[in-house]
C-alpha cells in the first residue's frame, strides 16, 4: 500500500484538506462541505452503478432516510441528539430500507430495475409528503446543531460550528468512507461484483449467486448514501421530502456520471463539481435547470466517461506518447 504512488497523492490531498477552513470563506466552506457529503453519496452510489452495473434512479430514498433519521431524532428524541448516536442510527435505517427496497428491485434488471427503484423512492416521497404531522411535509423539519461526545454547541451559530469542529468531523467521515470503499472495491467481494457487471451469465456459472450479491451491493450503497444524507443535514439545517423525489435521485446519478463512473475517484470529482455548478447556475439565473439539463446533455454526448474519465484517458495517452519517445 505504501509503495503505490497513489497513496502519496491521497495523503498529500488529505493534508491539504486539513487547512481548508483557514483558506476559504465561510460561504465557500459550506459549499465545500456540501460537496464532501455528496462525495460520500457518490462513492456509495457508484458501488452499485460503476462496479455492479445497476442504475438506480431512486437512491434519494436512502439519502432522505439518513437525513430524516437525524431530523426526527432532533424532534422526538432530543436527548439522543448527539452525533455518536445519529450516525449509527442513520446507517441502520438506511440499511433497513435498502434491504426492503433492494430485495424487491434486484430481482429485475436494466430498465425494470431503474423504473422500480425510481417508483419506490417516490413511494417514500409520498409518505414523507403526506404524513406532514410527523414529517413536516413539504415544509420539512429543522435540523439543529447536534452534540458530539458530550461537546455541546449551544450558543454557537451554525457557521462557526461548520467552520470548526464539524469540518474535521466531516473530513474524518469522508476519509473513513473513502478507505472502506477502497477496500471493498479491491476485495474478492468487489471483484465478484465486477464479474457480475461484466458477464452475469458467466458469473452465475462460476458459482456467484448474482441476485444475492447485487442485493449486498445495493445495501452497502444505500448505507453510504444514507450516511451522506445524515451528514448533509447539519450543513443544510433543514430537510424536506424532496430528498426522496426522483429528480433528486437523478442529480445523484448526474454527479456520478459527471465525474465518471468508471473510475474510483470519479464520483468524488463529480460531486464537488456538480455542487459548484448547481449553485453557480442557481445564483445566476432563474433558469438554472435549463443550464444543468443542457450541461448534462452535452456531457453525455461528448464526455461519456465523465470528467475524471476524460482526464484518465488523456493521462493514458500522454503516458503512451512519453513511452514511445
Amino acid at each position, binding site marked *: 500500500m505504501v509503495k503505490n504512488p497513489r497513496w502519496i497523492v491521497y495523503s498529500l490531498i488529505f493534508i491539504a484538506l486539513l487547512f481548508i477552513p483557514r483558506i476559504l470563506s465561510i460561504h465557500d466552506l459550506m459549499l465545500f462541505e456540501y460537496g464532501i457529503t455528496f462525495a460520500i453519496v457518490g462513492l456509495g452510489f457508484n458501488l452499485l452503478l460503476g462496479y455492479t452495473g445497476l442504475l438506480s434512479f431512486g437512491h434519494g430514498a436512502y439519502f432522505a432516510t439518513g437525513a430524516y433519521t437525524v431530523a426526527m431524532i432532533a424532534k422526538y428524541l432530543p436527548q439522543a441528539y448527539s452525533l455518536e448516536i445519529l450516525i449509527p442510527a442513520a446507517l441502520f435505517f438506511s440499511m433497513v430500507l435498502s434491504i426492503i427496497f433492494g430485495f424487491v428491485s434486484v430481482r429485475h434488471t436494466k430498465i425494470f430495475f431503474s423504473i422500480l427503484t425510481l417508483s419506490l423512492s417516490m413511494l417514500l416521497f409520498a409518505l414523507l409528503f403526506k404524513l406532514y404531522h410527523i414529517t413536516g411535509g413539504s415544509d420539512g423539519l429543522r435540523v439543529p446543531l447536534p452534540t458530539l461526545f458530550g461537546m455541546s454547541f449551544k450558543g454557537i451559530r451554525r457557521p462557526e460550528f461548520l467552520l470548526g469542529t464539524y469540518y474535521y468531523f466531516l473530513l474524518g467521515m469522508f476519509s473513513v468512507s473513502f478507505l*472502506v470503499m477502497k*477496500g*471493498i472495491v*479491491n*476485495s*474478492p*467481494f*468487489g*471483484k*465478484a461484483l*465486477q*464479474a457480475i*457487471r*461484466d*458477464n452475469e*451469465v*458467466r*458469473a*452465475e*456459472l*462460476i*458459482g*456467484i*449467486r448474482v441476485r444475492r*450479491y447485487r442485493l449486498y451491493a445495493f445495501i452497502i450503497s444505500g448505507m453510504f448514501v444514507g450516511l451522506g444524507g445524515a451528514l448533509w443535514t447539519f450543513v443544510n439545517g433543514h430537510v424536506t421530502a424532496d430528498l426522496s423525489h426522483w429528480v433528486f435521485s437523478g442529480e445523484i446519478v448526474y454527479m456520478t456520471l459527471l465525474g465518471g463512473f468508471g473510475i474510483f475517484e470519479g464520483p468524488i470529482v463529480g460531486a464537488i463539481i456538480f455542487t459548484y455548478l448547481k449553485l453557480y447556475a442557481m445564483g445566476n439565473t432563474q433558469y438554472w435547470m435549463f443550464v444543468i439539463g443542457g450541461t448534462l446533455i452535452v456531457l453525455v454526448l461528448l464526455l461519456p466517461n465523465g470528467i475524471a474519465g476524460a482526464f484518465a484517458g488523456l493521462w493514458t495517452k500522454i503516458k503512451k506518447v512519453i513511452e514511445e519517445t
Partner: protein
Amino acid sequence: MLTIDNLKKHFGSVKAVDHVNLEIKEGEIVSIIGTNGAGKTTLVNLISGYIKPDSGRILFLDKDITYAPPYVRIKLGVGRSFQLIQLFSNSTVLDNVRIALFSKYGMIRRGLLPADRYSSVTDEAIKILDSFSMSDKKNLTPKGLSEGDLKILDIAIAFALKSKLLLLDEPTSGVATNDKFKVMDSIVKAIKKEGISTLIIEHDMDIVSGYSDRVIVMHEGKVIAEGKPNEVMENKEVKATVFGIVS
C-alpha cells in the same frame, strides 16, 4: 461420475434432447459429435444448469442435480466453458481466473482486504495460468488477447473451479487451425494431471480422435452411437448422418 437418465428437452416442436442416456466415468475424456442442431449444446446447458429439462434425471456423484441451480452444481464440481467466449471483459486475465477461485473457496464474502493480499489464491491463479502457458499475459485484459488465448482463458476459468467434471463446448472453434493442437495439448495436459472427467463438444474429427477416450454421436436429439473413436468413425449410420458419406 455423471449419469444421464432418459433426459428430455423440447423447445416447442424441436426435440433438442430426446430421451438421452449416457454415462461418464472418472477421469474419462468423452467427446460428443453430431451435426449442428443435434442437441449437443442443449445437453451441456442441461448439465451445467443453465436450463432445466422437461423430464429425466441427471445424477452427478450419485446426487440428483436435475433441477439444481447453477451455483449448487458448481459447488459439487461441474464446470463449463463456452462456445461463444464468455469472459469478464473489464478484468485482467489474472482476475478472470482469480474470481473463479475466490468463488470456489467461498471467499467472495471477504469484503475489506484487497484481493492481492490473498497470496495463496493469487499464486494458485498464476499457477493455473502457467499450466496453460498464459502467465506472462496475466495483467492484460481480454481486449489485448488473441482468439486462441481467449479460448484458453475461457477454459482456464472453468478449470479454476476445481471441477471434477469439465464441460467444454467447442474448445477449438475460432482458433486458427495451426494453433488447435497447441491449445488442446495444454488443455488436455492440465486435465490429465488432475484426473478431471471431461465432456467435449467438437466438430474437428482430428481433435476428437486425437484426445478422446470415448466418443458419443448425437443426431436430432438422440444418441445414435457410442464407443472408441475409431469404432465410431467406422459406424455406417454415423458416417451417413454426421459425415454425409453414404456407402
